[in-house]
C-alpha cells in the first residue's frame, strides 16, 4: 500500500513537471508573490515581532479553545446568529441543506471558502437540486471547467489568460473572445451581479471569529464576499473550529500579517465584520445568519501537543508561494484540498498518514515554508513527525492511519542501516568496500537508478577520510 501511494504524488508531480506552460505560470506567479511579500516587510525586526505576536495570539486562542468557542457561540446567539456544530463534512452538508430547504432556497451564491471545498459542498448541493455558484472570480473560473483550486488564495493561478479567454467565450452566453483582463473581468461581473440579485442564499467562509463580540471577520478584495453575505435574504457561514480568537484587538495583527503574507498587500480592499443579521430599523442585510462550525479531524489534531500547531494556520498561502516543490508541480499534483506545505501536514492528518504517505515524503525539508509562516508553524518538524506516524504505532498517538504506511522493505533497510552505522568496525569494512568497489555499482541499481535519472552516478573517493586521517597523522583517539 505504501509503495502504491508513494507513486501517487510522484506520478502526478512527474506529469506536471513535463508541462512547461504550467511550470512557467507557477514560477512567474510565485516569484511575483515572493517579491510583493518581501516589499511589505522592509524591516526584518518588525516582521519577527509581528510573527511572534501573531503566533502568541493563535497559541493563546488554541489554549483557550473550548472556552472561546462557547463564549463565541453565546455572543453569536445573542446577536441573532444561529450556530450549528458539525463533526464531519457530511453532517455540515446536511445542516446546510436543511437550512436552505427550510427557506425554500434553490440558488446559493458563494464567497470563497476553503472549508466548503473541504466539504465538497457544491457537488453535494447540486446532487440535491440546489445551484451553488462560486462568485470569487478565480473560483468562478475553475468552477466553469469543473476544476478544483490549485492554490488556497488564488484558485485559478494555474490558468493563463488565453485559457480563460477561450473558456469564457465558450461557456458564457453572448461572450465574445477577448484576452483583455478588464473585459474578461467585466463579463464575469455582468453574469455574477445578476446572480447576486437573484440568489436565495449566500455562503461565506470565516477568516477570524471573535469570541468577545460574536463577530465573523471576512477578508476579501473583490466585494463578492460582501455581495454574498449582504444581498441575499439568507447568509450561511462555515468555519473550522480553530478560527476563533478572544478579541477584535487580537484580530488586528493577524489581519495585518495575513494580507501581507498572502498577496503582499498592506491591507485588503474589504475587511467585513458581521455581527448579526439585519438589525432593528435596517433596510438591508440578510434576515437570517447561520454559522456552521466544523470539526472534521481538527479536535483530534488539537489533542496532540505538537500537531496542534497545525491549527494555528490562518490560510495565507505563503508556505506554498515559497515552496520549491509547489512552485514546480503546482497545486493539482497534490490531489488534495489544501496543497503545498500546509496541505502536506493537514491532508495526511485528515485522510490518514498511511494513505497519504506520498505527500509526507514529498518534501526536501528545506524549511522555506516555516521561515515565512506568519504563525511560525514548524512544518518540516511536523512532516518528520508524520513520517514517523506513518510507519510506527507509538503509544498515545491518535493520528489517523498510524503505522499503515509501514513496509517490511523499509523496516529492514533502516535496521541494516543502523546495524552498520552503530558498529564502527562494520562501517569501516563497508566503507573500505565502497571506496574500492563502489564505482563498479551499475547506474541501474535500485535507488541509484532514481538518482541517475538526471544526475551522473555518484562515485566514492578512492580512500575514505578516516583512512586519510590515519595515514596522514591527525591525532585520532
Amino acid at each position, binding site marked *: 500500500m505504501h509503495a502504491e501511494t508513494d507513486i501517487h504524488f*510522484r506520478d502526478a508531480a512527474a506529469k506536471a513537471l513535463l508541462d512547461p506552460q504550467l511550470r512557467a505560470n507557477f514560477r512567474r506567479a510565485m516569484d511575483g508573490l515572493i517579491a510583493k511579500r518581501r516589499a511589505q516587510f522592509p524591516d526584518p525586526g518588525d516582521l519577527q515581532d509581528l510573527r511572534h505576536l501573531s503566533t502568541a495570539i493563535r497559541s493563546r486562542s488554541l489554549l483557550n479553545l473550548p472556552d472561546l468557542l462557547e463564549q463565541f457561540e453565546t455572543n453569536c446567539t445573542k446577536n441573532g446568529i444561529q450556530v450549528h456544530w458539525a463533526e464531519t463534512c457530511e453532517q455540515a452538508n446536511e445542516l446546510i441543506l436543511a437550512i436552505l430547504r427550510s427557506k425554500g432556497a434553490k440558488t446559493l451564491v458563494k464567497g470563497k471558502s476553503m472549508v466548503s471545498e473541504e466539504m465538497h459542498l457544491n457537488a453535494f448541493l447540486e446532487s440535491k437540486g440546489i445551484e451553488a455558484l462560486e462568485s470569487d472570480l478565480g473560483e468562478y473560473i475553475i468552477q466553469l471547467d469543473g476544476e478544483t483550486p490549485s492554490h488556497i488564495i488564488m484558485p485559478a493561478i494555474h490558468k493563463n489568460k488565453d485559457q480563460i479567454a477561450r473558456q469564457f467565450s465558450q461557456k458564457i452566453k453572448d461572450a465574445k473572445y477577448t484576452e483583455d483582463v478588464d473585459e474578461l473581468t467585466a463579463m464575469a461581473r455582468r453574469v455574477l451581479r445578476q446572480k447576486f440579485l437573484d440568489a436565495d442564499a449566500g455562503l461565506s467562509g470565516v477568516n477570524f471569529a471573535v469570541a468577545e463580540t460574536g463577530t465573523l471577520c471576512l477578508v476579501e478584495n473583490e466585494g463578492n464576499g460582501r455581495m454574498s453575505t449582504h444581498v441575499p435574504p439568507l447568509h450561511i457561514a462555515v468555519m473550522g473550529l480553530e478560527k476563533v480568537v478572544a478579541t477584535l484587538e487580537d484580530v488586528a495583527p493577524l489581519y495585518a500579517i495575513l494580507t501581507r503574507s498572502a498577496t503582499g498587500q498592506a491591507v485588503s480592499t474589504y475587511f467585513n465584520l458581521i455581527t448579526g443579521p439585519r438589525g432593528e430599523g435596517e433596510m438591508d442585510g440578510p434576515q437570517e445568519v447561520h454559522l456552521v462550525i466544523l470539526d472534521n479531524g481538527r479536535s483530534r489534531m488539537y489533542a496532540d501537543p505538537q500537531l496542534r500547531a497545525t491549527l494555528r494556520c490562518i490560510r495565507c498561502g505563503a508556505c506554498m508561494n515559497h515552496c520549491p516543490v509547489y512552485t514546480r508541480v503546482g497545486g493539482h499534483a497534490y490531489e488534495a484540498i489544501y496543497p503545498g506545505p500546509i496541505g502536506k501536514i493537514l491532508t495526511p492528518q485528515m485522510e490518514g498518514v498511511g494513505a497519504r504517505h506520498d505527500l509526507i515524503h514529498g518534501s526536501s525539508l528545506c524549511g522555506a515554508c516555516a521561515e515565512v509562516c506568519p504563525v511560525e508553524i514548524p512544518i518540516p518538524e511536523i512532516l518528520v513527525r508524520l513520517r514517523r506516524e506513518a510507519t510506527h504505532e507509538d503509544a498515545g498517538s491518535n493520528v489517523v492511519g498510524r503505522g499503515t504506511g509501514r513496509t517490511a522493505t523499509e523496516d529492514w533497510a533502516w535496521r541494516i542501516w543502523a546495524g552498520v552505522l552503530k558498529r564502527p568496525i562494520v562501517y569501516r569494512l563497508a566503507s573500505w568496500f565502497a571506496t574500492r568497489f563502489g564505482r563498479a555499482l551499475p547506474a541501474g541499481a535500485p535507488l541509484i537508478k532514481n538518482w541517475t535519472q538526471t544526475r551522473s552516478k555518484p562515485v566514492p*573517493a578512492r580512500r575514505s577520510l578516516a583512512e586519510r586521517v590515519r595515514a596522514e597523522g591527525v591525532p585520532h583517539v
Partner: protein
Amino acid sequence: MREVYFYGTCLVDLFFPDAGMAGIQLLQKAGVKVIFPEGQTCCGQPAFNCGYWEEARDVARTQVALFPRDLPVILPSGSCAGMMKVHYPELFHGQPDEAEVRAFSTRVFELTQFLVDVLDVKLTDLGEPVKVTWHSSCHAVRDLGLNGEPQALIDQLSNVERVPLTREHECCGFGGTFSVRQPEISGAMACDKAADAEATGASVVLSTDGGCLLNVHGTLEAKHSPLRVQHIAEFLWERTHAR
C-alpha cells in the same frame, strides 16, 4: 593550545575526503590542535528524517560517545551540524541520556562558523583570479542559523570574485531520501540550481554541504557542464596554503 574535535560526516568520509582533510588543515593552520576520534560513522539524520528514530538514536549514541571531553566539535557540513546541534535534543527528548546529549549539542559547530565566529581567521589569497558562486544549504541557514560566515570567508580572498545565484536560498533538491523517493521533483530542482549556477558565469560552485555538492555535481556532470563544484573547505585551503 586550543583543541577541537573534528567530525567528518559520512558523505565527506566517502565522497569528499579532500574537503575533510582541508577542514582539518584550515583549523591546524589557525593554531588549533585537531583530534579526529576513530569510530565515526553518521550523525543519524537520514533515519531521523524518515521517522525511524530508534535506529537514528542507536547510531547517534555511538557517535556522541566519541566526544567525551568538553571540546568544540567541528563539522564540515551545515546539515549534519544542524542535526547534532538542533535535532539531537528533540531525538533524545525523554531519554535517560538526554542531558548528556544536550550538553554535547551545545559544543557543535559548522566549520566556517567556527573559523569566523570563534577563531576570527584572516585569510591571505595565494591563488589566481577566479569567479565563484555560493550555494547556501537550507539546513545550514534555516536549522543551524549560519549567517553569512562562508560568504565572509570567500570575500576575504582578494583574487576571488563571488557572484551570487539568482536564488541563493532556494533548495537544490537534495533532501536526503527525497532525492530517490521523489527523483522527478528533486531532479527538476537540481537542474534549476545547476542552470542558475551556470548563468552566473562562475567556474566553481561552492557549498558547505556534501549532500548539496553531490547533487549539484551529479547534475552538472550529467549535462557535461564545465562548471565544477567544490566544498568550501577544500577551496579555502587550496588558495591559502603555500604549496
